């Protein structure tokens, strides 16, 4: 087991930069998520860590050792693929034993380790079956078994749950978290699913278009999105973005957009007055009640535990959250209260209260 450090990783495919100076660090035993929309380069980062692709620039370090030029074999890592990638001509036992056999381990030791891994994953009763006789969830377990059986230095997951149905996915999520707790292996996990990212990750690296957008804990990424991309990518339903301008009215600083005026609860924004900014308000910071936002209810979704309101205000569409007992009807006028402390402001796409220096210290680069 070891930590992982990536420095200025760059990769070009056919003249297109898919990875652009990506740097981040994962501590020993940490569960790190690479999160981004499909095609953002997160899987390429994983393949570069694994050694399945060769980078054009930058370095990969596992533990204290630079592994940039080494083959996957020499890097001593394990990987679980989206398609499971089980060997169809081998049965479950042989699949799990495969990496040990390649390493010329003794037959007795292999037997012991495979049994232990299979027991841990609850697949010890199906060792003689071929992959095609297994369900999706069972195949995924076998793939994980093949990865954990040789106690690698790093554990890589490439969207491992995206082929499973929703119910199985959430139970596997819990199991994966438990497995990580038990084994404590440094894990890099690629996903486009923000729920997986928020629930599994100790650290989230948000990537878009080959560039890191933000690095932080799930809470930080949600509560303090570093830029417009992270703000709009994370959160369901997504954040409301309203374009406007910061103005001063007497002593008070206001955010103004058309005839909407929201007081800004921050004195240190004085220097941004007059600037064109975008405000981001999460739906849960908006609710029915007295407030600056008013409009007409266009659509209502009852989710059981809460209610999602879609409101048309002027030419803006606003999403808000209400309790389960919300009684309004479509077509009615509604006024929304805003929790002004929870409004995010972005200037030129970047979060306003993030001190620029601190951002660079964490190795993040924003577009």
């Amino acid at each position: 087991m070891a930590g992982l450090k990536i420095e200025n990783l760059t990769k070009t495919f056919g003249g297109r930069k898919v990875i652009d100076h990506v740097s981040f660090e994962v501590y020993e035993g940490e569960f790190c998520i690479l999160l981004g929309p499909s095609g953002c380069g997160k899987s390429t980062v994983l393949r570069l860590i694994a050694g399945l692709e060769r980078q054009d620039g930058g370095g990969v370090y596992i533990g204290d050792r630079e592994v940039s030029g080494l083959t996957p074999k020499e890097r001593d890592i394990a990987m679980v693929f989206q398609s499971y990638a089980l060997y169809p001509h081998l049965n479950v036992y042989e699949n799990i034993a495969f990496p040990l056999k390649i390493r010329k381990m003794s037959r007795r030791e292999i037997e012991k380790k495979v049994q232990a891994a299979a027991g841990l994953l609850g697949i010890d009763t199906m060792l003689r079956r071929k992959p095609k006789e297994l369900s999706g969830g069972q195949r995924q377990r076998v793939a994980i078994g093949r990865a954990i059986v040789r106690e690698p230095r790093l554990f890589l997951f490439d969207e491992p749950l995206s082929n499973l149905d929703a119910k199985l996915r959430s139970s596997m999520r819990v199991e994966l978290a438990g497995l990580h707790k038990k084994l404590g292996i440094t894990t890099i996990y690629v996903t486009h699913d923000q729920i997986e990212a928020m629930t599994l990750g100790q650290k989230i690296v948000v990537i878009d278009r080959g560039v890191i957008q933000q690095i932080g804990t799930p809470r930080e990424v949600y509560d303090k999105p570093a830029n417009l991309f992270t703000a709009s990518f994370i959160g369901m339903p997504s954040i409301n973005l309203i374009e406007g301008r910061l103005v001063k009215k007497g002593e008070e600083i206001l955010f103004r957009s058309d005839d909407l005026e929201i007081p800004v609860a921050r004195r240190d924004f004085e220097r941004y007055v007059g600037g064109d900014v975008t405000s981001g308000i999460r739906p849960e910071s908006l609710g029915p009640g007295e407030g600056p936002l008013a409009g007409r209810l266009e659509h209502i979704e009852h989710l059981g535990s809460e209610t999602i309101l879609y409101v048309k205000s002027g030419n803006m569409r606003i999403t808000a959250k209400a309790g389960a007992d919300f009684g309004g009807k479509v077509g009615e006028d509604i006024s929304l209260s805003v929790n002004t402390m929870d409004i995010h402001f972005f200037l030129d796409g970047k979060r306003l209260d993030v001190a620029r220096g601190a951002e660079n210290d964490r190795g993040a680069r924003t577009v």
Partner: protein
Amino acid sequence: MKERLEKAGFAVLTLFVVCLSLLPFLWFLDTSLKTRIDITAIPPAIVPSGSFHFYESAIENYNLLHFVKNSMIVAGASTLITILLSVFAGYALARLRMKYKGIIMGSFLLVSMFPQISIAGPVWKILQSFGWLNTYQGLVLPYVTLTLPLGIWITASFFRELPGELEDAAKIDGCGHVQTLFKVIIPLAAPGVFTAALLVFIYAWNEFFFALLIMTEKSYQTLPVGIALFQGQYTMPWGEIAAASTVATVPLVLLVFLFQRRIVRGLSAGAIKG
């Protein structure tokens, strides 16, 4: 009703085509089991007397088994060498990153399209300078050269079909290129490898022109040449030729039946999702 008629028509047509292509084989099988008198009978006797006389004669008087041995050696060696080279070349062309893949594949195809007669002279010259005329390797070399494009094309196209993640998984699990090829790729592409092997074997087994050109000594001749030379200036041993032809056909039929299941079976089922 219409559907039934269609089915019946299809069956009749199929039967007709099968009979048509099997007729020559059935005729010489029939002939090989006749006696010398049956063969020349007019009208021709359809039902053979079931004598193995011609087989015995072909073996005793015409050295049939010797030709069988030569054919086995030449076709077997050609197949082994071609397939070994094909899986390496096919893997490289299907999977490894290299320049000019298209041109390389295209030129293989081009080479295999030269008419044999146009290369016969140079091939003979080259073999003569090696001192390989009338040797097994003298025939194996051109066979390997001529069948290699086919072998590479078939294996490469089967390898290309395999999901790339399986190969990645093998690399992560600690395989080098050669281990990946032999432990993962070839077992999965077995149908393709068998198909290629079978086609190469059939080609080498049946080939006549080069065999005639290169093997002028009886002791090295293969079956097709041997059988063709059964007839003397004044003799036409029709029965022995039929018997030898049957013997020459049976191994191919057996091979196809033996490997049919392997060829048809989709081994890669269950590899990935779905």
